[in-house]
């Protein structure tokens, strides 16, 4: 294995491949940082350009964009409170708070380092533990997915620190939004009110853009009139995290990277879910959970390591079983097939040099991402020096393009505007937005798998207490809920 990996590195550092990795990662970071352009979209856009390329070069480019894209989403999330990709939605919570404290450089450096740690661990696990991870992922059926979704939904309690009831109401609102469109089991149209635009339900991208970006622009408009509106940019904003802070966040980043890899290896559970789950776990296991959401470095490290952990995890079922774990893996599957390769157990035997070249390129791409991430902080933080009126306009019109871009749909722009108003009003009445996004992401998974599980068990709910993984997830959900309520009570009594 080591010899094959070394051969892979030899290929990756060749004159024709290395510049491609650098360009692909840089391109991915740009794409990820633009609201509405996801890593999936970046890989899909690039796919046609790889048709005529040699196999290794093609895969290296696509994987570079994927890794850069997942990291890039955090830049806009931290600086503008506008997640570039759904995977960065959890990073907003503490990332932007750090910016408001004048610690943008720290937030961005923690994001870059944690993304690197998550991506690197994930690739190492992909190389060494693929067969075992694939077996773990194969044990997931409808009841286990339902358990995972319920566990994910309990995160609502921990991200609703101030008012649990309002957090739950926000979560239920998100779940309701997720039910719009064709019923996943019977295909019956629900809450579509006769419009074909709603048959597929609300696309997560315009909803996310509306809730976070447009509502943020509205709030910024109000602060324009406040004489004491904060100055976000001075020399200290570019200060990176210290060695001591690095040592502090390292355990969180490593744990989140491992968790992200496991979550990524489960088909259907993507980087967005991993980010929220790892954030919740970091908060739960922290000695000071009440500080999460106020701008703690661990609150950035956990989701960033978690979502980049998915990059390797998602390739586990693809390379070992031929099953794409998420949308990007599905595009990569297409790329492999176009190159005349058949993903699955035989890929390692028949095309070992290519597979190990891919592994080596992922390790190198993560290093390149770290380098570009750290070097770029000086430039990224310049965004904070742009006059507020221009920033508002930039956020608003980037949001419009981002909402349109996914489906080339004017309707999606209206959706983004609508959710912008909803997000703004929710903030006015003290309802946190993260539970809404979380519920929209996890709602379809919870509903369709609950109903499939009941069908599997012929109308019985016994799967809730007969399947070990489901029991484990439900126990974790109860534990997570009790911990969050306990933390809240402790905080109220202090």
């Amino acid at each position: 294995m080591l010899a094959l990996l070394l051969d892979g590195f030899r290929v990756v550092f060749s004159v024709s491949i290395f510049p491609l990795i650098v360009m692909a990662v840089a391109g991915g970071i740009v794409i990820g940082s633009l609201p509405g352009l996801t890593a999936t979209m970046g890989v899909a856009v690039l796919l046609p350009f790889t048709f005529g390329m040699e196999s290794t070069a093609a895969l290296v480019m696509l994987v570079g964009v994927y890794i850069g894209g997942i990291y890039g989403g955090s830049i806009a999330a931290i600086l503008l409170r506008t997640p570039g990709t759904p995977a960065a939605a959890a990073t907003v919570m503490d990332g932007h708070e750090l910016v408001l404290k004048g610690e943008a450089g720290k937030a961005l450096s923690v994001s870059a380092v944690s993304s690197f740690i998550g991506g690197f661990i994930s690739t190492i696990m992909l190389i060494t533990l693929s067969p075992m991870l694939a077996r773990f992922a194969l044990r997931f059926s409808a009841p286990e997915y339902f358990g995972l979704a319920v566990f994910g939904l309990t995160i609502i309690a921990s991200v609703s620190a101030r008012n649990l009831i309002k957090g739950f109401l926000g979560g239920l609102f998100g779940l309701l939004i997720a039910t719009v469109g064709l019923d996943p089991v019977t295909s019956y149209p629900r809450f579509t009110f006769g419009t074909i635009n709603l048959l597929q339900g609300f696309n997560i991208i315009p909803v996310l853009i509306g809730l976070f970006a447009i509502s943020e622009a509205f709030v910024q408009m109000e602060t324009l009139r406040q004489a004491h509106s904060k100055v976000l940019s001075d020399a200290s904003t570019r200060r990176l995290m210290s060695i001591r802070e690095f040592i502090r966040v390292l355990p969180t980043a490593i744990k989140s990277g491992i968790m992200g890899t496991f979550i990524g290896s489960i088909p259907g559970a993507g980087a967005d879910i991993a980010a929220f789950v790892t954030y919740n776990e970091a908060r739960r296991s922290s000695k000071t959970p009440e500080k999460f959401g106020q701008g703690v470095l661990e609150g950035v490290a956990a989701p960033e390591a978690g979502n980049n952990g998915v990059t390797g995890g998602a390739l586990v079922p693809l390379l070992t079983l031929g099953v794409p774990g998420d949308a990007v893996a599905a595009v990569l599957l297409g790329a492999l097939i176009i190159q005349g390769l058949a993903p699955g157990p035989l890929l390692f035997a028949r095309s070992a040099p290519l597979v190990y070249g891919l592994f080596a390129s992922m390790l190198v791409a993560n290093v390149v991402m770290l380098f570009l991430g750290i070097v770029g902080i000086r430039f990224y933080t310049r965004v904070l020096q742009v006059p507020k009126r221009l920033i508002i306009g930039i956020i608003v019109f980037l949001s419009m393009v981002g909402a349109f871009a996914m489906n080339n749909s004017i309707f999606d722009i209206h959706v983004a505007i609508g959710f912008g108003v909803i997000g703004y009003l929710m903030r006015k009445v003290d309802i946190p937005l993260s539970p809404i996004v979380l519920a929209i992401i996890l709602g379809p998974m919870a509903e369709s798998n609950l109903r499939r599980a009941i069908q599997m068990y012929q109308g019985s709910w016994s799967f809730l207490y007969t399947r070990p993984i489901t029991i484990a997830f439900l126990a974790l959900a109860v534990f997570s809920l009790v911990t969050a309520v306990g933390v809240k009570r402790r905080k109220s009594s202090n």
Partner: protein
Amino acid sequence: MKRTNRVVAVVFALLSIGVLYVTTTFRATLIIDAYLGAGFFPRAIAVLMLVFAVVLWFMEPRVRPETLTANDSESDGEKYSLLTDMRAPLITTILLIVYASALPYLGFPFATSLSFIALLALLQSRVWWHYLFAIAFSVVLFYVFYDLFRVRLPRGVLF
């Protein structure tokens, strides 16, 4: 805050009642789905929403200003009280709806330049280069997305 909570409770209660009503109009489908059906999940959500809305109605706000935290800086009641000036967001919303409706006809560069300029005027920007930036930004954004990312932004019927 108590009054705000009650308004929120009423809005969510009305929403849940509306959802419960709409789900009663769902017809049975040919696909056998145990005993749940398309209305099961929305109905369960609506019932829970109603319960939480009632709890919120009776809940006394206990949060003291010094315990304000967190996540909830995103919903910091102190900063953004319900009655602060909502004119700019309201006018911007109308501007954006008009913008989205005009986009297919005017095309992205023109519609975006116009709307960005209108937004800057609304925000009382008195710096001339902000307006120039708005035009340049719209044009550059169009070409970056159209040519580089292959996003078919509307070109409009006029140009």
